[in-house]
């Protein structure tokens, strides 16, 4: 409320200041020539001063004086025509109407436009929150909490739960380096599950300004080892590939991640955005329409496109399941026709695993294994495929 009062007062002041010259009766302005003449007279005066100081000799002074006087004379003629022009056309007819338009513009349009712009851009009603006044578990309170935790953990460094809380608080405060240290402590205590490992990797990435560095990769690899389905670790593994310039591989990882995602996963939007960006920079036009399924389209088999996933999210749960099944069957059918695709078989195996069909998953893995074996030893994708194969094998009891 106070804000609206102040904003209103400010607008009123602005309108008033702008209005004043518009409503006040203006005298006719001094002609332009008079201003020029003031400068020329000044120049003449300076010339005399310079001569008195002995800076210029007589010939120079004379020449300059002549020049300035000539300009002065020209200006006088101009002044005369100024006067004539002014008396001939006092103020054009209809000037009053035009002036009213100006006044209306300022009085009506200014406040309306200001309100409109502010309504689109501003966040009215969102109160300010200086750091010193914060009571939302950050600011001073967070600092106190951190101090307490730190001193407690100094006495009892084996408290993994304590380290976890501290790590999360550090992370929230943006102290990524400290958060990473805390997560490492938990891992060191033998309590680092896939989530902790993924968190460790994530804060390392944040600390490195978004770059997936060596330590972070190690953490994600360990997380995937412990839980091949861990979405965060898989997401960052894809990011690491993309940052290495292996965008196509990263894209494949993200697509399989999106395919495995529960439809209400909060991170799905992020993954989809990455997929769309990556697909766009690879020159694919994929997301707009669903890929034609199977029928020897010649295109390499792909995972579900962003549009597929989007349309899937709109379905009720049982239909979603059916949709996923239909996609998996489409993939299986395509692979039967074009079996020389280890990546596709691995994806099929994972999909079956997610659907709980272990036998089918194992079958798909068995189809993938010889294909990977058959790849040349220096094929760029070989190591990654091999890794995924191992991960899937160990995930299937």
């Amino acid at each position, binding site marked *: 409320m106070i*804000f609206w009062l*102040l*904003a209103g007062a400010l607008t009123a002041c*602005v309108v008033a*200041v*702008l209005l004043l*010259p*518009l409503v*006040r009766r*203006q005298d*006719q*302005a*001094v002609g*332009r020539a*008079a*201003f*020029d*003449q*003031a*400068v020329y007279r*000044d120049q003449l005066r*300076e010339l005399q001063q310079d001569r008195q*100081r*002995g*800076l210029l000799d007589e010939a*120079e002074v004379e*020449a*300059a004086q002549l*020049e300035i006087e000539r300009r002065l004379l020209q200006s006088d003629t101009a*002044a005369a025509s100024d006067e004539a022009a*002014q008396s001939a056309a006092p*103020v054009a007819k209809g000037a009053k109407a035009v*002036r009213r338009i100006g006044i209306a*513009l*300022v009085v009506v349009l*200014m406040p309306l*436009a*200001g309100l409109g*712009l502010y309504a689109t*851009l*501003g*966040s009215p009603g*969102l109160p*300010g*929150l*200086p*750091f*010193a006044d*914060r009571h*939302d*578990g*950050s*600011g001073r309170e*967070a600092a106190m909490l951190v101090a307490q935790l730190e001193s407690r953990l100094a006495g009892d460094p084996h408290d993994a739960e304590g380290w976890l809380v501290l790590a999360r608080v550090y992370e*929230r*405060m*943006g*102290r*990524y*380096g400290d958060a990473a240290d805390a997560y490492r402590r938990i891992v060191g205590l033998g309590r680092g599950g896939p989530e902790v490992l993924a968190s460790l990797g994530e804060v390392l990435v944040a600390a490195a300004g978004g770059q997936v560095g060596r330590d972070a990769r190690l953490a994600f690899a360990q997380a995937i080892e412990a839980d091949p389905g861990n979405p965060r670790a898989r997401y960052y593994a894809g990011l690491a590939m993309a940052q290495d310039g292996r965008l196509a591989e990263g894209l494949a990882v993200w697509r399989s991640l999106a395919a495995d995602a529960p439809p209400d996963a909060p991170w799905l939007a992020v993954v989809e955005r990455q997929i769309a960006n990556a697909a766009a920079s690879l020159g694919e036009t994929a997301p707009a329409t669903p890929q034609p399924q199977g029928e020897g389209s010649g295109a390499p088999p792909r995972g579900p496109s962003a549009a597929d996933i989007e349309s899937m999210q709109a379905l009720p749960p049982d239909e979603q399941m059916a949709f996923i099944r239909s996609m998996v069957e489409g993939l299986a059918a395509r692979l039967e026709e074009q079996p020389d695709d280890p990546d596709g078989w691995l994806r099929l195996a994972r999909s079956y695993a997610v659907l709980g069909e272990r036998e089918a998953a194992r079958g798909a893995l068995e189809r993938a294994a010889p294909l990977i074996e058959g790849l040349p030893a220096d094929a760029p994708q070989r190591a990654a495929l091999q890794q995924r194969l191992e991960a899937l094998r160990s995930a299937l009891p």
Partner: protein
Amino acid sequence: MIAELGHFALILALLTALVQGSLPMIGAARGDAAWMALARPAAVLQLVLVALAFAALTYLYVVSDFTVINVAENSHSAKPMLYKVTGVWGNHEGSMLLWILILALFGSMVALFGANLPPSLRARVLGVQAWIGIGFLLFTLLTSNPFLRVFPAPADGRDLNPLLQDPGLAFHPPMLYAGYVGFSMAFSFAIAALIEGKLDAAWARWVRPWTLLAWVFLTGGIALGSWWAYYELGWGGWWFWDPVENVSFMPWLLGTALLHSAIVVEKRDALKVWTVLLAILTFSLSLIGTFIVRSGLLTSVHAFATDPERGLFILILLLITIGGSLLLFALRAPVLKPGGLFAPISREGGMVINNLFLAAACATVLLGTLYPLFLEAVDGSKVSVGPPFFNATFVPLMVPLIFFMALGPLMPWKRADLAGVFARLKLAALGALAAAGLTLYLREGWPVLPAAAMGLAAWLFVASLVEWGGRIKLFRAPLSDSWRRARSLPRAAHGMTLAHAGMAIAVAGMIGASVWNLEEVRNLRPGESMQVAGYDYRFDGVEQIEGPNYLADRARFTVTREGRPVAVLTPEKRLYPVQNMPTTEAAIHTTGVSDLYAVIGDSDGRGGWTVRIFHEPLVPWIWLGCLVMVLGGLVSLSDRRLRIGAPKRAKARPDAAQEPIPA
């Protein structure tokens, strides 16, 4: 609420600019005094509104309100107060706001002190000024809004780039921007003159102080930036021909040309069309300087904003401003009446030479800066245009420029006697020979080129003093008489002497720094010492210290020369944990003739440390010279002659006794 008020004030500033850019312009075209008169209060109002917004943003930084995205992204609660405040413009959005604030400041200065301007010209100048403001306000509000909010707020901010956490940041950007924006005045005057179709000596007289003011700020800003790079980056260099440096240097070169050609317009009513073109191009380069670093075309410490949407906006803005003004120039320049004639060898001729060389130098820098960008855009190949290119192209242009710089002030207007001028420069030639000889004597290995270069600097320095001495009849009249003459000499004359002499000092510094700079890198253990250029540096060791928001290894060097203590240097290597970013803090001791410069590197883990020692002869002269140039500009600016009185209304219309405009 403060954030929202600041936001609202900024929106009102945009609307005020729209009014200021339209009604007074129409008023000037229709001869409507009321609408023309609107320009002045609107310009002052702009300043008030933008200042409100800026104050609001500063407050948000000071109290660390992280509901404001801009604050959360660029500040931190533990940051020292100085850097909370300087952090306001240490980021893209805030620096745009600063730009607009300075623009509004200049606009309101025309409104407040421009009583001596004809109302129609003033209305148009302020109108054009408002157009520039509209462009920038739209850009800021729509693509770089510093007042956007986030809720819930992040627990703490992401901190300011540690490289920018330096007292230099308090002054360098505001100075540089004041320079860039200052040239908007010359631009607005040029556009207004083109619209009016009238450009005469009086016009030049009004433009000159603004150009001079902008030049002073830009000179100071560039010097501060180079000084900052010198002590903060820890590379021992002071100028890297980095694109970001170049884009600030180009408007300086053209602005310097403009400064001189405006004098010719004022005194001789000649070179008018060229001067208008220079005014347009100088500001265009200022705009490029402001924007090119933000458009993502160039990446460096300064590239705050790399965002395609902004890049497009910037491109359109540049296209409209530069393309539009050049189009207007093409259409209207023929209307401007040509003025006075002059012989090739004359003061005017000297200014033309100055302009030619400065413009050519600017073109070289432009080519060297933009060529890699174009090449990359065309076939994707990356080339780096570095010091070798500029040494081969820019430096040869500077040599004749400096040579002629000594002659120009000695030549009278209209036509000059070259033999007479050279006769007066005997002393300067002697000084040049002495400096060259001294260089050869002091330095081993017969350094012919550096000696010639030092001679050139001395030539300019002595010639500037000779000209000044001649004016006050130094040593040819009794000292008291000379003193009296010096007192009555116009301040602009003193200013010119200072600026030219300052240039000579800076040139000497640049030569010394680039030719005789020494660098030694060693691995030292505490207690060991090394010798550089006759100074012994004993490495006493490294201690860990904790700053307000950083940790640092601080090394200690005791510097002695032939056993006598000279200085204690304490370079630091800092780590800012929030951004996990190390910075170096060089330790510099200046003797006035050279700098001793120490940087501490990494530990080798076995007790040794990488130590870099630079010996930088004459480097302090670079900034001393710049300081003298700035001083010259200020002295010149204080000349009473640049302040012309307004014509009294009574002179024009005896029937009315009031002042023309209620102030």
